[in-house]
């Protein structure tokens, strides 16, 4: 009995081969190849004494606790059982050969020198993934999801959303921290549209850059275990945006489309220990977050190139009609711009437009002014006229005359747009009480 070293190939010969084998010989070989391989044996040369049922000399082959046959004879002999070119393949990584020769090889008194046999064996990779190759009573379970064979071995893997367990064969749903960062995509309950597993604690997070708003669109079918009277007692699909819960869903009526107005959304799917609902699937997209449509405070405010929609990073420029000033509180602004921010708000609130006020007109020395129109105020387009204290002074104006109007720039200007007010110059030689001779 000689154990064959664990090699990938080898040969086995009858004793003394190629010389005739001896009588009364029993030889046993245990072929052992590495795990993950099977033994394939073929006889290169087989020359044994033929006999009925191989009663006299024979080679017996066993593997996997099964007899693979008993062989004797010569090629072309009418009796015996010559193996020919048959390939003997084990299911496991072992094969047992036994050779037996009786006390003589005489035929009608003539000694016939039977030479014995020469066999080759090789280790052939066992495709563990082939179900036909599954060994009986094999304690190792099959791969639950995917099997990958390689030379001398195999490994298992799992479908998306599943995690290979420590036994390297079974798969368990792993959805506790699924992260999505693309601007659009799909997510669904495990196994969708097949019924989802029980005892799930799934958390799907969508995280996009600031300024984007996530839109969730539920696809059909939508099925989550429910109760007619109690709201979602068994399984729940919760949707949160920036930590704020938008809704909790179950049943068979799809929530449709949800605009979250947030760049961060969490979807929690909790299931209990039973149920056969098919679950849910979401197609999410994103768009730049929108800001409220800007609305002017008054009819003097102008929003340049007003758009129907304003989104993140859009901006507006606001001005006033002629004769009005942009005001923020009590502060006059030279210009105004507001930008739509990542959180959907404008970075500045809308200003107001107040009518231009020119202030009190300059006093005219030795003269006065009066308001031409009503109401008499210093607002835009008010008109005043200057006069002098006649008859002692006379008015001297520029080419623009003695009427001044409150301009859009907040100054009093004459008709030539000049700000210089008239002057009152003395009138000479005009006494109130000139001498008058009476008697002649």
């Amino acid at each position: 009995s000689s154990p064959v070293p664990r090699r990938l190939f080898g040969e086995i010969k009858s004793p003394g081969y190629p010389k005739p084998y001896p009588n009364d010989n029993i030889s046993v070989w245990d072929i052992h190849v590495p795990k993950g391989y099977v033994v394939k044996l073929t006889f290169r040369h087989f020359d044994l004494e033929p006999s009925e049922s191989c009663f006299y000399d024979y080679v017996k082959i066993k593997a996997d606790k099964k007899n693979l046959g008993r062989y004797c004879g010569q090629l072309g002999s009418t009796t015996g059982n010559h193996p020919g070119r048959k390939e003997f393949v084990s299911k496991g990584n072992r094969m047992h050969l036994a050779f037996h020769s009786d006390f003589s090889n005489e035929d009608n008194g003539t000694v016939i020198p039977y030479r014995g046999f020469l066999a080759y064996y090789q280790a052939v990779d066992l495709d563990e993934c082939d179900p036909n190759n599954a060994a009986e009573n094999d304690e190792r379970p099959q791969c639950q999801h995917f099997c990958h064979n390689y030379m001398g071995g195999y490994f298992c893997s799992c479908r998306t959303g599943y995690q290979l367990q420590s036994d390297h064969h079974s798969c368990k749903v792993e959805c506790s921290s699924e992260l999505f960062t693309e601007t659009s995509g799909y997510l669904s309950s495990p196994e969708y549209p097949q019924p989802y597993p029980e005892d799930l604690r799934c958390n799907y997070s969508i995280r996009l850059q600031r300024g984007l708003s996530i839109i969730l669109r539920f696809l059909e079918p939508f099925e989550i275990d429910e109760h007619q009277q109690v709201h979602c007692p068994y399984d729940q699909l919760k949707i949160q945006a920036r930590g704020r819960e938008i809704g909790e869903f179950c049943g068979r009526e799809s929530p449709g489309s949800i605009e979250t107005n947030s760049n961060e959304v969490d979807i929690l799917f909790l299931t209990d220990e039973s149920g056969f609902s098919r679950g849910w699937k979401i197609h999410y997209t994103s768009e730049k977050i929108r800001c409220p449509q800007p609305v002017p405070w008054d009819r003097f405010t102008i929003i340049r190139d007003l758009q129907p929609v304003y989104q993140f990073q859009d901006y507006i420029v606001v001005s006033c009609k002629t004769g009005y000033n942009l005001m923020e509180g009590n502060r006059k602004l030279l210009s105004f711009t507001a930008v739509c921010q990542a959180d959907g708000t404008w970075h500045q609130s809308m200003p107001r437009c107040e009518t231009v006020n020119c202030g009190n007109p300059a006093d005219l020395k030795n003269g006065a002014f009066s308001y031409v129109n009503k109401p008499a105020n210093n607002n835009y387009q008010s008109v005043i006229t200057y006069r002098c204290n006649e008859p002692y002074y006379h008015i001297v104006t520029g080419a623009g005359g003695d009427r001044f109007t409150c301009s859009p720039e907040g100054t009093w200007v004459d008709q030539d747009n000049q700000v210089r007010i008239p002057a009152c110059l003395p009138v000479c030689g005009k006494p109130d009480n000139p001498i008058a001779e009476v008697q002649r």
Partner: protein
Amino acid sequence: ILGGKSASRGSFPWQALTSIHGRGGGALLGDRWILTAAHTIFPKGLGGNNVSLDQLAEKANIFLGHTDVEELHKLGNHPVRKIFIHPDYNPEDYYNFDGDIALLELKHPVTLGPTVLPICLPDTTNTTFYMDGHMGYVSGFGVEKNFISNNLKYVGLPAIAREKCQRWLDSKKRHLPIVFSENMFCAGFLTIKRDTCQGDSGSVFTVLDTESGRWVATGIVSWGIGCAEGYGFYTKVLNYVDWIKGIAKED
């Protein structure tokens, strides 16, 4: 003023009462200039006027706005910023009053009204005011009947033709080197006692421009030989209009 009448308030609103080296007169130009005679500031015969114009400006008293001297004083003095004497005036030449004209710039402009109004300057193209017989009126606070007047008086005097003035002057001046220049004219009567006199110096000789209806200053009371003994002599304002405007810078 000899042989004149009391002036009513508002008849000669340009009349100024000056007190620099004694009583004198002046006339308001614009709202901050006083036209007067140079010799009221630098009198002749004082010998070596060592006082500066700035010092004189400091101590000059100018009064406006009334016909009564006491009331004038009560109205308050109008301080002088600067004095401008015509460069032709020579205080050392006792008998030559050529260039007898000066301007006083007031520190503060006055507010015009019925009793304070400026006199006009003559149009340089119009010489009719100096033609023989053209009537003018002179006002002043000067001597009347040997007494200095406490009220403003005025008198109407005709301008006299140059040759008449010269003839009369020649008959009166004897050998005195009295100068009657082209920058002067004379006015008055030979026999009627109507004239200007001491204390009226600097007051203006005015005529009514009938075209414009304005009173115009054609002369400044300057000198004479006695009072009411013949013609009086006046600085011819027409010849100094450019000088006046150059200083006062008025359009």
